[in-house]
C-alpha cells in the first residue's frame, strides 16, 4: 500500500482532463452511471491520468483544457488558468 496524495486527483474531473488536457467525453459504465464531469469515476481513457494525479498537480484546466501555470510548494500547490483563474490544493 502506498500513502497517496489525493489532493490533485480532482483535477482529472471535468470537461477536460487535468493531467493530459484531453477531452473527458460523457460516458456510461453500462450500469447507468455516467461521468458527470465532477463526481463520477473518470472515463476509461483517463483512469491512468487520475492515478497519475495522486502524485502531481493538474497541468491543464478542467474547464477549457488550457495549460495551467503551476507552482508547487513543500506543503501545497497552486495552479492558474489564464481564462478561469486560480485553483489551489484542497
Amino acid at each position: 500500500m502506498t500513502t497517496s496524495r489525493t489532493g490533485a486527483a480532482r483535477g482529472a474531473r471535468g470537461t477536460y482532463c487535468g493531467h493530459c488536457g484531453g477531452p473527458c467525453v460523457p460516458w456510461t459504465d453500462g450500469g447507468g452511471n455516467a461521468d458527470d464531469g465532477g463526481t463520477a469515476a473518470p472515463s476509461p481513457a483517463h483512469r491512468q491520468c487520475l492515478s497519475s494525479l495522486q502524485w502531481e498537480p493538474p497541468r491543464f484546466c478542467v474547464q477549457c483544457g488550457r495549460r495551467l501555470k503551476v507552482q508547487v510548494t513543500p506543503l501545497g500547490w497552486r495552479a492558474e488558468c489564464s481564462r478561469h483563474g486560480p485553483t489551489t490544493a484542497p
Partner: protein
Amino acid sequence: MTIHATDHAILDTARRQVLDQGIGLAEEQLVDVLSLPDDALPAALDLAHQVRLKHCGEDVEVEGIVSIKTGGCPEDCHFCSQSGLFDSPVRGVWLDIPELVKAAKETAATGATEFCIVAAVRGPDIKLMNQVRFAINRIRQEVDINIACSLGMLTQEQVDQLAGWGVHRYNHNLETARSFFPQVVTTHTYEERLATCAMVKDAGMELCCGALIGMGETLGQRAELAAQLAALDPHEVPLNFLNPRPGTPLEHQEIMDGKDALRAIVAFRLAMPRTVLRYAGGRELALGDLGTREGLLGGINAVIVGNYLTTLGRPATADLNLLVELNMPIKELQKTL
C-alpha cells in the same frame, strides 16, 4: 538481524571494511552489492543501517525544497519536465519572495532544518542572483532554518557571492555515471558539473551532489556513479528514482523495481559511510510505503519532506510519523556559537 558469514562474501567484506573501518566499497565491490539476490537483501539493508548508525548517528535530516523559477530551462536533461526543449506540460513560472518566505515558514514548521531554493536554469543570471539574495535576506529575517541553493552551473564569482550570503550548502547533481551521461544530457558535459562541484567545495560550502537512478543505466554504471560520488566526497547525496515525466525522452521508461531501489540505497550507503544520504524524488513510485520504511532502516538518514519541484510527495505528516514510529530523532538546527 545477525549477518551470517555464509550469506554473501561481499557483505562480510563490507562489514569489515565499511562498518569496522569506515572505508567505502570500491566500484567493483558495489557491483556485487547491486547484484545481491533478493534473499540477501534484508541482511544487506541491516548492514547498511548499522553503517549509517555507527558513522552518521541516529538523527535524520529533514529538508524542504521549492522552485523559485520553474520551467523554460535551456538544457536537455532527458528526465526533466522543466526543459524548454521538450513538449512537457510544465509552464514557466516564478515564485515571488513573499510566497518563498511562506514556503520556508511552512517547511520549518515541519521540523525541517534545511530549505533549498531551486531554479531550472543552466546557470543563474543577474536577475536570478538578485532575487535569490533578496529571498535569503527575507527568509533569514523571519525563519530559523538553514538555506541551501540549487541554481545550476556557477561561475567562481557566483560561488563566492552565494558563500558570502551565507548559503551553507549548494546542490549540483552528477545525476548519472560519467559513461551514461551523454545519453541523458547533451547540452553540457560531466566535466562542467564537476567544475561547479569543485568550486562549491573550495569556497567552503557543503556540497550536495545527487544521483538519479532508473534511467536505463546498467548495474555497472550505477556502481560507477556511486564510486564517482564517493570520490567527490559530498556532504550530502540526494538519491532520486526516475519518475517518468510526460513529454520527456524518458517518459516511457519503466518505474524502477522496488528491490533494485533498495539495493541501490545499500550500495550508496556502503560506498559513502559518512555522507548524508537523502530520500529524494520518485521514492513514492519506486518504493511505496513499505519500501520507504525499509530504506530508512537500510542506510537512508535524510528525507525531503512534502512535495518536490513539480510533483507531489508523501504527506509531510506520513514521513514525520514514520520517523517517530522508527524512533529516529529529527536532526536539530545547528547554531554557530
